[in-house]
Structure formats: C-alpha cells, structure tokens
C-alpha cells in the first residue's frame, strides 16, 4: 500500500521540484502553518479555553482601562464642536423635516377625505331609505390608512424625540456615547452620516481645544495637586523605609549567625504577616497605640494630642506593612551571591565593611532597585491605609474614592485622576519588570557554591539582632493590639474587658457582612485558581497567536491599582458596555464583585502557576498526548495533578486576597452586599474602633484558619502525599 502511494506521490513531488525556489519555500512554510492550524483547531477544548480567556481579559481588564483612557481624553473641549454640530445639524432637523406639521396636514387630509366619503355614503344610505349607512369598503380602507398613519406618526415622533434628546445628552458626554446614541435611535443611514461628520470634526486638526480638558481641570485642582504630591512623597519614603528594614532583615538572616531560635521564628512570622493580614490592620492598631487616645502616647507618655495622622502615619504604617516583601525578595538574592566572591575580596585585604560596600552592595544594586520599585508601586496603589490613617491627607487612591463617593459623583474627574495613578504605577511596573528584574537576575546567576561563613563577631551581631528583634516585636505587638481593641469597652477611656463590640457588630448585621464576604470570596477562589492554572498552562506549554496578549494582560492587572480598576468598572459597566445598556445587568450585582476579585488575584496565581509548570518536563505531557489523551484530558489527568499544590495555594491566596480586598470593591459595592472590609472602613471612619477591631479580629481569624486548612489539604491531598506514603512503606 505504501509503495502504491509512494509512486503516486513521488510523481507529484517531481512536479513540485520544478517549481521555482521561492514558490517552493512559500509553499513549505505555509503547509506547516496550515497543518499546525488544523491541529490546533482540531482541539475544541483548548480553542474554547483560549477564546473564553481572551474575551474575559478584553472585557474585564482591557475594556475598563480603555474606557478610562478614552474618557479622560475625550473631554468637553473636543466635544464642544461636536455639540455645536449637533445643534446645527441634528437638532435643526426638527424644523427641516417638521414631522409634526407635515403629518398633521396629511392626517387632516385623510380625515377630511374620510369625512367626505362617509358623508357621501350617508347620503347614499338615506337615499336608499336605510337607517344606518353601510360600511362602504372605501371608508374601511380610509379608516385603516388613517389609523396606520396616526400610529406611524406617533411612533416616528416619539422615536425622533428620543433620538434628539438622547443625542443631545450624549453630545455632552464622549464621542463614543454620541455615536452609540446615534445608532441606537436614528435610522442607520442618518446615524452614519452624522457619526462620520462628528468624528471628522472631533479629530480635525483645527480642533485643538482640547482633548485633555479633564486633565487641565485637574492641574488647577488643589485637591489633586496635593494628592499627587502626597502619593509620590509617601511612595518614595515608604519605598526607602521598606528597603532599609527589609535589607537589614535579609542581611541578618543570610550573613549573621543568630544563635537564638526565637529570632528565626520571629523572622518567619513577620515575613508571613503581610500576606495574611487584612489591609488596614496596622493603621487601626497604629491609631490605637499612638492616636489621640492612644495607649502608648496617652497612657504611657502622657501626650494628649499626638498627631500621627497624615503623611508620617501613612509612611510608618506602609513601611511596616510592605518591608516583609522586600525582605523576602532580597533574601533570595543574597542567597544567590557566591560567597567565594566575598571571600576573594576579604582574602585580598578588604575589611568586612569594605567587602560590603564594594562587593555585596554593588552586586545587589539592581535587586535593591527592583525591591524598591515593588514597594513603591504597592504604596502608590494602597488604598486602605491612607484611607484610615490619612486623616485630611489624601493620596491619589483616596482622592479618587472621595471624588466618587463625596456627594458629587464626579466620575469624570475621578477617571482623569485614575489615569494619572495608572500611568504612575504602569511606568514603574514596566521599569521594574523589564529593566530591573532581568538585570538583577543577570548579575546573580546560579546558586551559591557552598555555605557562607556567617559573621560571629559580637560587635556586629548584637546591634543588628537587637534592631531586627525590636522591629519584629513592634510589628507583632501591633497585630496583638487588634483583638484587645475589640475586647476593651472603650479604648482610651475604659479598659475593662467586655464583649459589647461583638454584640454590637452582630446587632448591626455583622452576620450578613461575614456571609456576603465569605460567599463572594469562596466563589472567586476556585474560579481564579482554575483560570490562572489554565493561563499558565497555555503560556508555558502551548504556542498560539493570542498567547502574548493573555500573558501580558494577566500580568498587567498587577500594575493596575484596585481603585483604578474600580473606576474603570464604573465607567465601563454602570451604563452597560460602551454605555449601550448591554450587560448593564451585572453592574451592582455580586457577579461584578466576584469578577473584580478574580481579576485582582489573577496575576499572583498565574505567576505561581507559571513557575510550577516550568518545573514539569515537557515530555511528560507529550507522552500523555502521544498515548491518546486530548489536550483537556492531558491537563486534567497529568498537568493539574502535578501542580495540585500550586492550585490549592492559588485557591487560598485568592480567597484571602478577596476577603481582605477593599480598594476596587468599595467603589462597586451596593447596599445589597455588605463586605467586612468596607464595614471596617466605615466604623474606623466613624471612630468606632471597638467594632472595627471586632470585625478585623474575626477577619484575621478567618484568614489564619484558611491558611491552616490549606496547609492541611496540601499535606493530605497534595501532589507529594502518595509519593511520600509509598516511600514510608518501603522503609
């Protein structure tokens, strides 16, 4: 059989060989491409997953942000001319066509003819001697015509009025709204001409008035100026502060011999805290300890009007919140420095300090820059801390929130601010991701060849350990403060224990808050984990066109502050997609909150999924594929079980991030849903610290419990369990 085919085929390829070289090349590459395409599309599960993800990303990441950008540049300036055009051409159409006049005249005409005919038939009937005239066919027809004309006229009239008013209101919004409105209400051909004309006007070169009016109005806005300045100042200070403390911790951990076991444990606890703590816990305890009625400032130091609100409060709290992030990043880098480099310097006569400044520090420089930027971004994007401890000091994130909630519902101004905030984080993120991250990895490649000689010199170890100890104890103290805050009757006045705050909490629908938060987060968790595993699988293992897009958008969500995403969702979905009313239904529902949770946690899950997947040999999946499993089956039977641990921790991480999230959801939540974090914010704002602490205490308990459960699940159902057990049996 093969021989038969061979003969037939080689004839064909003989012909092919006579083709010109170029044509042959083109044909060759196109065959492989079309085959790959055919194979690719022969796999409906994967194609479906990709299409779904692309739609999801476009709709819930790209679109809201695009909407923000569009809004902020399409401001009144350019719209003014569109508005003028509207008044001149569209609104004027009322007089030109004058539906009313024409139609009234036409109706009159028909009515008169109807009357005439009717009279005529009446006459005829009388002449015939009948009492009532017969319904003449002509009368019937005329009546129908009249009725139809009347209805038509009414419809047209109301539609037109709707169009006119719609267009008029839209002409004050964005060009996009204007066009959508045109198409929604006017006949298509007219909508086309008007839209084209409007667009032309909108982008015409002499229309220089412009475009960034929302921004120009921002520049004269003192609230914005202050917020902008505060954001950057706080970001810088927090960045440097976290970097310093984080580096200190990392250095002590990697270079200094710490005999004390407790110290090592403290390090672990402190590095875990920011992951598990709700966002404003530190702010709350900061106020409890150092505020106007603070335990330390008032009771111990006797200062009555200590002001920790404002920039310095925010910086302290953020530094304490974010330095563990620096610590973990820098620890990894320090461990990668080959000790022999430092030993070489030491061997050539450099003092320990000299080694530190000439070898260790320069090697760490890109890594330090990287860690600095990461905390800078975190600080700039942080909403909860400035909200609670900022007092009258606003950062961009809180200013945006206040724009929207502060009575004016100025989403337009909020959008412009959100764009500024987005630009800051986006630029920092790009620098961090594509310049520093690569460079810091490049200078420190590979693992240390062997253990490092730790510093035992007491004159170095003692001060460093005391410093670290001090910071750790302080941080832990601040966390402990929260449950106490919930148990004391009235902080600052009456330090007797009582459960009154818990009682109040549950009396004021506390249960509902827990239920809502819990349910929404528990739905978001597995969805996000699954999405991020599928995304990382596609990114690591497959080749397809939309890969770059999916990878980029899932990462970029990391650079988008929650507040910005919140405003984007408001602008994007409050009136439906593109303000057409389509999908408006999801706005204000639990679904949109879940979607926000998913989008916010996706980058973290994807990143861990990607690193887990990179460790799996490609041929393991290929062998399953080769044995007859389709791509869906390969994923569920081989890939997923191998990254189970990462999957479980993805679920829990998302759950924790969601239940403690506030920045984006606080803008989108409706009274239908109560969220724990929003309640804490509310009570803290009101000054009811007791109830805020009660909420926070239970929230911390929930978060801790879920992490414990995760560890148990991984222990008993994780990837390695069966393997471990089998090994035990062997022994």
């Amino acid at each position: 059989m093969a021989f038969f085919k061979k003969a037939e085929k080689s004839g064909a390829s003989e012909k092919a060989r006579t083709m010109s070289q170029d044509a042959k090349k083109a044909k060759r590459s196109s065959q492989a491409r079309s085959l790959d395409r055919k194979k690719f599309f022969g796999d409906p599960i994967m194609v479906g997953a990709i299409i779904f993800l692309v739609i999801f990303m476009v709709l819930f990441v790209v679109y809201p942000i695009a909407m923000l950008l569009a809004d902020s540049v399409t401001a009144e300036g350019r719209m003014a001319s569109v508005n003028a055009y509207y008044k001149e051409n569209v609104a004027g159409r009322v007089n030109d066509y004058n539906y009313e006049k024409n139609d009234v005249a036409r109706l009159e005409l028909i009515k008169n003819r109807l009357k005439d005919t009717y009279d005529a038939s009446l006459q005829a009937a009388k002449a015939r001697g009948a009492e009532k005239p017969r319904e003449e066919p002509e009368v019937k027809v005329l009546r129908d015509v009249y009725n139809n004309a009347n209805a038509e006229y009414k419809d047209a009239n109301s539609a037109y009025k709707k169009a006119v008013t719609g267009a008029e209101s839209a002409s004050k919004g964005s060009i996009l709204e204007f066009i959508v409105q045109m198409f929604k209400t006017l006949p298509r051909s007219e909508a086309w001409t008007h839209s084209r004309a409007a667009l032309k006007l909108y982008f015409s070169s002499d229309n220089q008035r412009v475009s960034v009016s929302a921004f120009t109005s921002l520049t004269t806005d003192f609230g914005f100026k202050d917020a902008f300045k505060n954001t950057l100042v706080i970001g810088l200070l927090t960045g440097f502060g976290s970097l310093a403390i984080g580096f200190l911790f990392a250095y002590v951990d990697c270079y200094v011999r710490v005999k004390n076991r407790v110290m090592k444990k403290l390090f672990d606890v402190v590095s875990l805290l920011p992951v598990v703590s709700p966002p404003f816990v530190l702010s709350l305890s900061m106020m409890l300890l150092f505020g106007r009625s603070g335990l330390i400032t008032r009771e111990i130091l006797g200062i009555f009007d200590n002001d920790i609100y404002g920039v310095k409060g925010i910086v302290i709290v953020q530094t304490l919140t974010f330095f563990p992030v620096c610590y973990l990043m820098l620890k990894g880098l320090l461990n990668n420095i080959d000790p022999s480099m430092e030993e070489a310097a030491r061997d050539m006569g450099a003092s320990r300090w000299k080694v530190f400044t000439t070898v260790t520090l320069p090697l760490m420089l890109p890594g330090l820059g990287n860690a600095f930027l990461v905390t800078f971004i975190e600080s700039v994007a942080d909403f909860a801390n400035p909200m609670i401890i900022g007092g009258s000091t606003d950062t961009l994130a809180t200013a945006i929130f206040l724009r929207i909630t502060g009575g004016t519902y100025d989403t337009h101004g909020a959008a412009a601010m959100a764009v500024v905030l987005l630009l800051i984080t986006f630029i920092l993120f790009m620098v961090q991701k594509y310049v520093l991250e690569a460079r810091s990895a490049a200078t420190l490649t590979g693992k240390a060849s062997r253990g490092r000689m730790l510093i035992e010199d007491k004159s170095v170890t003692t001060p460093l350990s005391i410093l670290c100890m001090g910071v750790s104890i302080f941080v832990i103290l601040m966390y402990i403060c929260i449950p106490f805050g919930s148990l004391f009757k009235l902080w600052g006045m009456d330090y007797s224990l009582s459960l009154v705050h818990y009682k109040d909490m549950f009396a004021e629908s506390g249960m509902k808050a827990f239920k809502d938060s819990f349910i929404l987060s528990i739905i978001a968790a597995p969805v996000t984990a699954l999405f991020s595993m599928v995304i990382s699988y596609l990114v690591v293992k497959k080749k397809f066109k939309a890969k770059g897009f999916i990878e980029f958008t899932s990462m970029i969500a990391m650079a988008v502050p929650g507040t910005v995403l919140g405003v984007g969702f408001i602008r994007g979905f409050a009136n439906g997609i593109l303000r057409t009313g389509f999908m408006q239904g999801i706005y204000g529902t639990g679904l949109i909150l879940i979607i926000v949770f998913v989008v916010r946690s996706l980058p973290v899950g994807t990143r861990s999924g990607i690193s887990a997947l990179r460790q799996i040999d490609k041929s393991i999946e290929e062998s399953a594929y080769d044995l007859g499993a389709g791509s869906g089956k390969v994923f569920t039977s081989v890939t997923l079980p191998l990254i189970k641990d990462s999957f479980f921790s993805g679920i829990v991480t998302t759950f924790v991030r969601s239940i403690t999230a506030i920045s984006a959801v606080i803008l989108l939540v409706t009274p239908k849903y109560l969220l724990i974090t929003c309640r804490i914010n509310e009570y803290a704002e009101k000054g009811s610290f007791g109830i805020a602490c009660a909420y926070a205490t239970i929230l911390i308990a929930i978060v801790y419990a879920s992490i414990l459960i995760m560890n148990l699940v991984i222990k008993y159902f994780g990837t390695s369990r069966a393997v471990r057990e089998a090994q035990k049996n062997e022994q």
Partner: protein
Amino acid sequence: MNSEKKGVFIDHIYKIYLDPKTKKEFYAVNDVTLDIKPGSFVTLLGPSGCGKTTTLRMIAGFESPDAGEIYIGGEPVNALTPNKRDTAMVFQSYALFPHMNIFDNVAYGLKLRKVPKPEISARVFDMLKLVGLEGMENRYTNQLSGGQQQRVALARALIAEPGVLLFDEPLSNLDAKLRVYMRTEIRRIQQQFGITAIYVTHDQSEAMSISDNIIIMNKGVVAQMGTPRDIYYRPANEFVADFIGEANFLDAEVERTEGELVRVKACGVSFNVARPEKNVESGEKHLVMLRPEGIRLAEKGIIPCKVLLSCFMGSYQLYHVQTADRVVKITDNHPVGRRVFEVDEEAFLDFDPIDTHLM
C-alpha cells in the same frame, strides 16, 4: 498482540526553522524519504543536530512537516494530532507520570480507551511481567532505578498496542552496562511483539546491535540507509564511513576493472580492490576505504609506510603510519606472537581486496 503491524512511509518531508537572530532558514530536515516496513526495527542514527529527533517527532505528530506527507499504515497522518495517531513514544527522560504509581502509569493508555477495569488489570500485570517488573505495581516512579523506569516507559508505550513504537534516545540516561542490557531487552520485546519500531540514537554500537536497518542522517538529509553490515562495510560516502567505526581513506585513480576486482593506483602503487556496486570507469578518481582492523602491518606488503605511533592497548596494538598520501590507522588485534613495529621503522601496509571498499 492483536493490533495490526503498521509500516511508516515518509514522503519528501522538510522541516524548516527560522533562526530568530539571523532570520535565516535552517533546514532541520531536508527532503527526507523513508520507507519503513511493518514489523521492522529501524534506527535513525546521526550526530546531534542531524534532524533525527525532528523526524521522529514529526512521525509522532509533535511537529508538522513544512512539506511532504507522512503515512502510517498507508494512511496520511499530517493533519492528525499526536493523540489521534497510532504511535507510542518512549522518551529520553522516560516522562513517567510522577503522581501515579507504576500500575496507573502503565494503565494510562488503556484507561483512555475505556477498556473495562478487569481487563486493564490483567493486561497491566501481563505487561509488567513481560518487562520484568512483577510486584512493583504499587511503587512510585522515584522509587525505581533508571533501568526500571525505562521498562515502565516501555510497558506504558506497548500496552496500548500501537501500530508503531517510537524511541527517542531511550537509553542515553543509563550507565554503560545497563544500556547494553536494556538494548537487548528492547530488541527481545520488539521481536516478541513483532511491532514496528523506529529508534533514534547517536550511539552507533546501540544502532548496530539492535536494528534491522539503520538510517544515517547528517545535516537534515539521509546519508545512507541499509543493514548494519551494509553500512559498515559498504558506506555510501566519507561521512558514513567515518561516522560508523573508524576508517582510513586513500585517494585512488581507477586503472581498469578485472572481473570482481578493480585495479587502482594509490600512493604511487597499483593494487586490487573489491569491485563496488556502482560502475567505475578507468581514469576516475575515487576514495579507497580501509578499516583499521582490515589492514596488516608487515615487512612485505602493498603500500610502503613509516610508523609514527606504536601503542599497546591491551587487546590490540595501535599503529599510526605515514604513507605517501595520508596517515593511516591500524589496529592489530591480539598481537601475541607477532612482530611489533617500533616508531620510525619502515614497513608495508598489507590487505586483501575483500577488506577494501571503493567509494
């Protein structure tokens, strides 16, 4: 074994990669045509980067050919994904599923085919017995030695009774002794099943010992296809001769053909060589290939030479000698009781026409 043996026919396939830096096209596989008979054991042999693995992966379906068509059992399979092709591959890294025990690993292919459970377990146990892994079914892959893992991989590939079995350098992660043992095992099992096998390796002794046919590839093209014997004694070109075993070449000019012999002149001496399959005309320039073990160093002989290196290697005496033309390598096996030539001594190369090959 109830599955049908399938042949593989590869018709003028190409695989072109674009070098991302230079933007130049690189022909990983360049116009390769192969006809692999059902039930035969064929090895793709070549240096790294010669396109052998790419060819194998195209047969499995992991890569698509840029031109040409692949037929498995007479059916064109270009448009089929790997899971729809009747092939099973044994990977270099074994690619066992670390989260499954040995039983589940082997049973994987059958479960996909929805074979009833009792049948699965019966077949898995039979298969484990066949590959010598009875009683290991509850272990995990990291509790097995390299050789055992290799057998699990083989069992897993065989159990679904594929039409064609593919091996991608399956023994390269094993130590030398185990490699020799496993290759005889693979050959034994392949013979027992009578399954078509395509085997990729860069180890020539592996290829020689295991195959019915060897395909030598170089730079994306097939350099020669034939039985191990053919390839060793009658290499098609200098590359093949050099790649398989060691070879000496002499530039020779054909003088005339005499029956089964050809009279050639090389190093200023006329001598007879075996007549090759292809036609040679007098006056043509050709290469004479001599294997080191096919030459004797003697006081009297055909081509005069001078000893450059004389070295006792245990089972043989190694010589490098300078002829008028090139340096020639000679291995004198089991040299006990024969004269050993020292460096700088004058001697002659002596050989029979049957030990020569004119290329």
